[in-house]
């Protein structure tokens, strides 16, 4: 089957992007150098084509909500114009997807989901909401561009106006630009100050080029995005999060509202964590990747879910599920494909502190 293409596909080729397949899409992995793009995002501003992620629109009467039970996010309780991270769980508490809910009005929400899970999420959400609840998959008509980096506010301000100064972390608003009114949220997955623009997909090229015209702005691909999210210890669906994993195993219980009902809650309340998600740093530049093993005293005690060379720490970093009794900060571990090869130590993410995230 042919991979899907984002509305910016031709512009990526013009920018000499190296394209890879990701979740059924042809996506830019880099435009020359993953390391340079990672660095640029931490120092200036990068823009990312995130069209592949899915967006759903939900409308329902909050007095009699079915949507509130669909995910771990308290969609009734949360304030308008705020965003919340959470999970769509199966009945066993396993993670079907991680997502962000945007509360547009008291009776209207947008959900942003991973590209690889879009169709499945749609099926499950539709099954769980009542017949009266309005659901629309708006992914095709919604272009999402992430503008990330310490200088991003200045850039987005020039497009959307001074009102951008009012946006606090994990809030959003509608802004008038390019002859329309569009959502911009102060969110992202890089650990830097950043914004996500949701715009009519017909205006994809126009907004992309407008952003690229600023001297401080460069495009960045999925390669840099992966290094950036890993340096912050953010989980990625498919690596750290799967249907066999609960948010408790991933150490993400702070994103769950146990005061309300949601699918999978009962199992979560009785769940015993066996392996806990940890960060690790390696002594040196060698890196351990997905499916490598974790050892203590020659004994296999866990497995690596992601690993990469961190250009900002100048060493290998990663995330691993480690037997809970060994999952302690500063514990020395060994990593290797089949047997212990290199030494590392367990650390508590984020690996990089004092970024521009909350500036």
């Amino acid at each position, binding site marked *: 089957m042919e991979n899907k293409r984002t509305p910016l596909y031709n512009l990526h080729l013009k920018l000499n992007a190296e394209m890879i397949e990701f979740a059924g899409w042809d996506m830019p992995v880099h435009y020359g150098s993953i*390391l340079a793009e990672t660095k640029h995002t931490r120092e200036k501003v990068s823009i990312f084509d995130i069209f592949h992620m899915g967006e759903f629109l939900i409308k329902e009467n909050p007095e009699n909500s079915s949507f509130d039970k669909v995910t771990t996010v308290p969609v009734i309780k949360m304030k308008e114009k705020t965003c919340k991270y959470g999970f769509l769980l199966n009945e066993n508490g396993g993670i079907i997807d991680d997502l962000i809910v945007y509360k547009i009005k008291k009776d209207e929400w947008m959900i942003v989901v991973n590209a690889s899970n879009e169709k499945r999420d749609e099926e499950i959400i539709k099954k769980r909401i009542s017949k009266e609840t309005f659901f629309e998959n708006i992914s095709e008509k919604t272009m999402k561009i992430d503008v990330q980096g310490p200088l991003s506010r200045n850039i987005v301000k020039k497009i959307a106006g001074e009102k951008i100064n009012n946006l606090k972390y994990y809030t959003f608003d509608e802004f008038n630009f390019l002859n329309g009114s569009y959502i911009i949220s102060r969110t992202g997955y890089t650990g830097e100050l950043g914004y996500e623009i949701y715009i009519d997909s017909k205006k994809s090229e126009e907004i992309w080029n407008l952003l690229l015209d600023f001297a401080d702005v460069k495009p960045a691909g999925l*390669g840099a995005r992966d290094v950036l999210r890993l340096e912050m210890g953010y989980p990625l669906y498919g690596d750290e999060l799967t249907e066999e994993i609960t948010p408790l195993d991933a150490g993400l219980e702070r994103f769950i509202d146990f005061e309300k009902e949601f699918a999978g809650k009962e199992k979560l309340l009785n769940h015993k964590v066996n392996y806990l998600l940890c960060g690790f740093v390696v002594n040196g530049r060698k890196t351990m990747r997905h499916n490598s093993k974790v050892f203590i005293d020659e004994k296999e005690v866990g497995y690596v879910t992601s690993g990469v060379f961190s*250009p900002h720490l100048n060493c290998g970093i990663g995330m691993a599920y480690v037997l809970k009794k060994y999952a302690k900060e500063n514990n020395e571990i060994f990593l290797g494909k089949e047997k212990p090869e290199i030494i590392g130590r367990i650390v508590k993410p984020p690996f990089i502190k004092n970024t521009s995230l909350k500036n």
Partner: protein
Amino acid sequence: MNVKQGYFYTKDHEWVKIDAMTGKIGITDYAQHKLGDLTYVELPKIGKIVKQGEVLNGLESVKAASDVYAPLSGRVIKINTQLENEPGLINKSPYDDGWIAEIEIADENEIKNLMTADEYIKFLGESK
């Protein structure tokens, strides 16, 4: 893609520069481009004996880990220790400063299994 005349090439995108009975080994411009930014070079030990086509050493880029195969059989006599701290030299200068190891060639008859620069250029064109 840059291909250097006078070097010999493998289908796995290694090069060897032959000088009497020694051969300097590295990866090609095409290979470094495909791998992307190199982050770690696992240098072979001096004295290591390799056969043609066997793993000489390992490389890691931001994207993935991969192996370098020996273009010729021989014994490793020199390694480029500069790569320990500057693996990016392979990206910047794949045919010169980014060389990986030098071997004492065991069997010069094996050179016939390699490609010349022109043959390698043709090979790159066909494999596209």
